[in-house]
């Protein structure tokens, strides 16, 4: 992993990334197992040092990996020591299935390329209910023997747009709870882009 990426990751942890860096990092992290593992590890160490039980780590790219980790966690006998070591046990499992990560990653990357051109993020009937953003960015991937490519910028933009849309549709529901449970009260509603009737 490059020093640049490592720095970006640290900046993400400290909430000090600029917008460009943040979007580049988020686009890359989905395709980079080492980057994901490093991020999980950083968080585990920082939460532990802050006195909180370490987060259960998950490498999220592949169901096979997730299931392997879940299986490992279920097998572990609960107890203080297990609580401390479990995340690292997960990491060990994660390392042992690293090959699967790469393989699984490729499988996922192929999702919209599996015999039905543009199936996953297809135009009008995209699975997320978007009409003109994800649909316009269907990317034909061609891997061959080359390393797994990063998300194309178009897809990166698409996820940002998707996020923007979800923020609009969910903000009001979040504001209802923030209004009742934070000192700013009703002012939380001022964060809603357009308060609906």
């Amino acid at each position, binding site marked *: 992993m490059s020093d640049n990426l490592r720095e970006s990751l640290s900046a*993400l*942890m*400290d*909430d*000090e990334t600029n917008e460009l860096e943040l*979007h580049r990092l988020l*686009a890359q992290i*989905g395709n980079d197992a080492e980057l994901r*593992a490093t991020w999980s590890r950083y968080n585990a*160490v920082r939460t*532990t040092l*802050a*006195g*909180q039980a*370490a*987060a*259960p780590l*998950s490498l*999220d*790219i592949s*169901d096979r990996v997730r299931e392997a980790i879940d299986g490992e966690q279920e097998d572990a006998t609960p107890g203080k020591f297990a609580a*401390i070591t479990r995340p*690292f046990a997960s*990491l*060990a499992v994660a390392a042992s299935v690293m090959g699967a990560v790469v393989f699984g990653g490729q499988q996922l*990357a192929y*999702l919209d390329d599996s015999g039905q051109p543009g199936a*996953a993020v297809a135009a009008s009937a995209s699975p*997320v209910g978007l009409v003109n953003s994800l649909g316009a960015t269907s990317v034909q991937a061609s891997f061959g023997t080359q390393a797994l490519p990063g*998300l194309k910028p178009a*897809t*990166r933009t*698409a*996820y*940002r747009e*998707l*996020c*923007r849309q*979800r*923020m609009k549709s*969910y903000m009001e*529901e*979040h504001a*209802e*709870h*923030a*209004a*009742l*449970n*934070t*000192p*700013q009260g*009703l*002012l939380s*509603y*001022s*964060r809603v882009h*357009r*308060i609906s*009737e």
Partner: protein
Amino acid sequence: MTGFGRRLRVVAIAALVFTPVGALAVPPACPESDVPGLKWLEKMSRSAQTLNYEGVVTIQRGEDMDVVQVSRNAGRDAINESLTRLTGPGEQVVRKAHPQACVHPGSEMLQLGDALNRGQCGISQYYRLKVTDGDRVAGRRAVRIKVQPRDMYRFGYVMDLDRETGLLLTTKIMGPGDRLLEKSQFASLKYGPPTAEPSPVQSEQQAEQTCSDDASEAKAEHGPWSPGWLPNGFRMTEAVDRTSARRSYTDGLSAFSVFVEELPRDIRPGEGVIRSGGTTSYTRGLRLGGRPVLITVIGEVPVNTARMVADSVNWEVARAD
């Protein structure tokens, strides 16, 4: 792969070695220096149940500035409140007849009462509190509470409270390095039952005010999904049923909500984020338990926190408390 495995072991060992040090580094139960801050925050929280006022508040988020009119009328049994946007198209949120007896988890965390004397320190487990003199705000003398997070999973705050009544006059949400993310402040304030005619509005919305009896014991339902990890001190804001697509959490000062959508078909995995003032919205598409899902975390928390929570969402797996 071998090299990577070795590095993992090194980190694992390092973390294990550091764990006891981390445990020792946790401050004692209730730092004396935080007590004045805790008392002020309690006064602030209780004042929200008793004060009548109306005023104008300015809200700054980056380049954007919003101006809203607020009013609160607290009766013996119920509170009526409204917020009217004075900029842009007229919009109003009204909360009518919110029962006085209904205290939500976020307020409970600030209203320690006698528990403070018994050594409970509420949010000072997660934030350092410092009380100083504040500037005058909307003509009122203020006291300033500087609230600094003890970990990296939440933002800091600078709050100015009315020295006399405890009303929250200014809220600044601060990122790392004292970076101002969002500021709301009373420009004018008048105590007493609201008298001003509300400005004409295009739309009016009733604010939700669910108050379940067991709100104080709101716990994560197990399934069909739940986050496997939350930052220390965050609790659910209400009990939800199994089918709810949303869970909301608060630590008393900030809140975030998690939304999970099952998608009808696969989506190219990826993630995106939008930040606006103190609010982060993070969306991630992935397969979870064999299903294509879209997870969105929205709240007044850093991106890294939103990503951690989204990353920990399990399907049909009990939350590890």
